[in-house]
């Protein structure tokens, strides 16, 4: 459904995207993750046919993103980080506006509107001005507007930024319903717990795809083992371990557990010795399954070093 070959985009001296080759099959939920400035938004805009590549090519829903950009628009929806809602129009008026924009017929529109309102949990707010909706509701309305023409491929650029946990859950329920209807979804996110639930994840860094696979496959990139340290004072323990194990381990706080990623042969003993020497009390040092966030921090950290 999405196929790219050596897709590259340069802005002057900056290579925002460098030779992306990727295939996303129909009906897949694919997540693109990476640090700020990695090229995620550029990728979205290239795939949506809004930006032309400097080199390489991409096909989306069978359409060439440059030669068939006009036809492509009917097959896809793209929800950018600043999706254009009209704050002085109501929820329903915004939906009608987008229906007209996409050339949706009046009959289709009458059928689609109640569906989308109910599906985005916005039926009770249909007469409210979009400018008076909460951030989470605005994102849901943005998605509903993007879906008015029943696209086959959906591009979502960090759709849940600044959205609270309740709205984030609603948003993901909507995505799964779309997925069940066969829509292909390409999403970028800064929330790695969201990436965990996608079929496949691509890790982008400085315009290059460092890794691509199922969350489990991507986790195998972790060089070393993850040890979870439960300490009485997690912040102090993390700072200590970071200092003492510099160059030999990646150390970070993860909730109240200190995560230590290291290839040291007898890691628990080494970690325990550092803590004991400084008189830092701890309960347990246990091997843990890494999360995508651990992999992200460790792999990007190595690249930066």
């Amino acid at each position, binding site marked *: 459904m999405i196929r790219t070959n050596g897709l590259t985009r340069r802005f002057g001296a900056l290579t925002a995207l460098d030779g992306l080759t990727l295939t996303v099959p129909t009906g897949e939920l694919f997540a693109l993750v*990476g*640090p*700020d*400035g*990695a090229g995620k938004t550029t990728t979205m805009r290239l795939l949506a046919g809004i930006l032309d590549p400097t080199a390489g090519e991409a096909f989306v829903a069978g359409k060439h993103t440059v030669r068939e950009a006009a036809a492509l628009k009917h097959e896809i929806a793209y929800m950018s*980080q600043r999706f254009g809602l009209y704050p002085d129009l109501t929820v329903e008026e915004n939906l009608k506006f987008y229906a007209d924009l996409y050339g949706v017929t009046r009959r289709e529109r009458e059928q689609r509107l109640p569906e989308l309102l109910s599906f985005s949990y916005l039926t009770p707010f249909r007469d409210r001005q979009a400018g008076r909706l*909460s*951030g*989470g*509701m605005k994102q849901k309305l943005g998605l509903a507007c993007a879906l008015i023409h029943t696209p086959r491929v959906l591009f979502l650029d*960090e759709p849940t*930024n*600044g*959205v*609270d*946990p*309740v*709205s*984030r*859950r609603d948003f*993901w*329920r909507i995505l*799964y319903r779309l*997925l*069940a209807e066969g829509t292909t979804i390409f999403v970028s996110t*800064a*929330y*790695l*717990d969201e990436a*965990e*639930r996608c079929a496949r994840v691509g890790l982008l860094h400085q315009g290059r795809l460092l890794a691509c696979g199922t*969350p489990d496959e991507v986790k195998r990139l972790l060089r070393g083992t993850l040890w979870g340290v439960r300490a009485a*004072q997690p*912040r102090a323990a993390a*700072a200590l371990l970071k200092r003492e194990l510099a160059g030999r381990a990646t150390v*970070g*706080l*993860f*909730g*109240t557990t200190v995560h230590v990623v290291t290839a040291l042969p007898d890691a628990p003993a080494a970690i325990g010795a550092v803590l004991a020497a400084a008189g830092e009390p701890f309960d347990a040092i246990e091997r843990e399954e890494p*999360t995508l*966030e651990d992999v*992200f*921090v460790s792999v*990007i*950290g190595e690249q930066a070093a």
Partner: protein
Amino acid sequence: MSAAERSPHIVAGGDAAAGAGDGGSALSGTGNAGAAAVRSPAVTVHELTRRFGDFTAVNRVTLAVATGEVFGFLGPNGAGKSTTIRMLCGLLTPTAGSGTVAGFDIRREAEKIKKHIGYMSQKFSLYEDLTVEENINFYSGIYRVPPAKKRERKEWVLAMAGLTALRGSITGTLPAGWKQRLALGCAVLHEPPVIFLDEPTSGVDPMARRAFWELIYELAGRGTTVFVTTHYMDEAEYCDRLALIYRGDMIALGTPAQLKRETADGIIAVTGDQPQLLLAAVEDLPGVREAALFGRGIHVVTADAAALLPAVQVRLAERGFAAAAAVVEPSLEDVFVMRIEAHDRNGAAA
């Protein structure tokens, strides 16, 4: 670090005995929650209320934040978080109730409060076309950092934000995470005893978020009180205490561990592939109050998790899922959602 760096929180200019007192006591603290509890409060709020016409944005909120505490202020979009922060910063007058920040009254001493706090919002107010150093100089002027201290404070901010080598770079060209650290540095140039951070990490990648939280700990460790809002529940875990605000009401207050304990004895976590199918398989079981996607699986909320667990396991087996189910402690995200739903249910019943 030098003694001068360690003692930044005594109020410059000496125009307020109350402020100096708070600053002084902060020096003895270590910045952890236990010590914070016995120290003087940096922020107190009593029955704080703000109405806009017939809409009550903040409804009788009462809380106290100890000096050196990292206090997380959570709630859905539009719950009243920013309105509360604006009142605490002296930018908006309360309709009713009272409060103090760094020892100053939020109604009568708003101008003094502005000198004794740092504020950083998700829209960092940096000048994109100025260099890093020029931005620091600009804020040094705005915050009236004494000329004798300007250089030292600038070097401190550059070092803290990891921007010493990039001091001459145009701010607009920096990655978001770096700008965010610079914005925090600018917000604390005048060594305020209390800082307010309104969704400071929104839209920043996980590496940058971690680096940012290390700076927050560093400031708290030096006695600065940090009042922070976030939608990232992993960040909420890093706070000493949390308040949850919803539709203007404060509906929960406590340490992360307390809130989890008080909200539920346990929930059921199911881990496996295709969480959306797992969700569909278990959400209609009798006794399930809520089932939601959580990372690589689902979380099931019920009155008695241990009692429901066998039924969930049987259902998963019947439907042919190779998924593991177990009773676990609720995450803060679960707590957040459960508290809000409980509040809605009570509201509907009333």
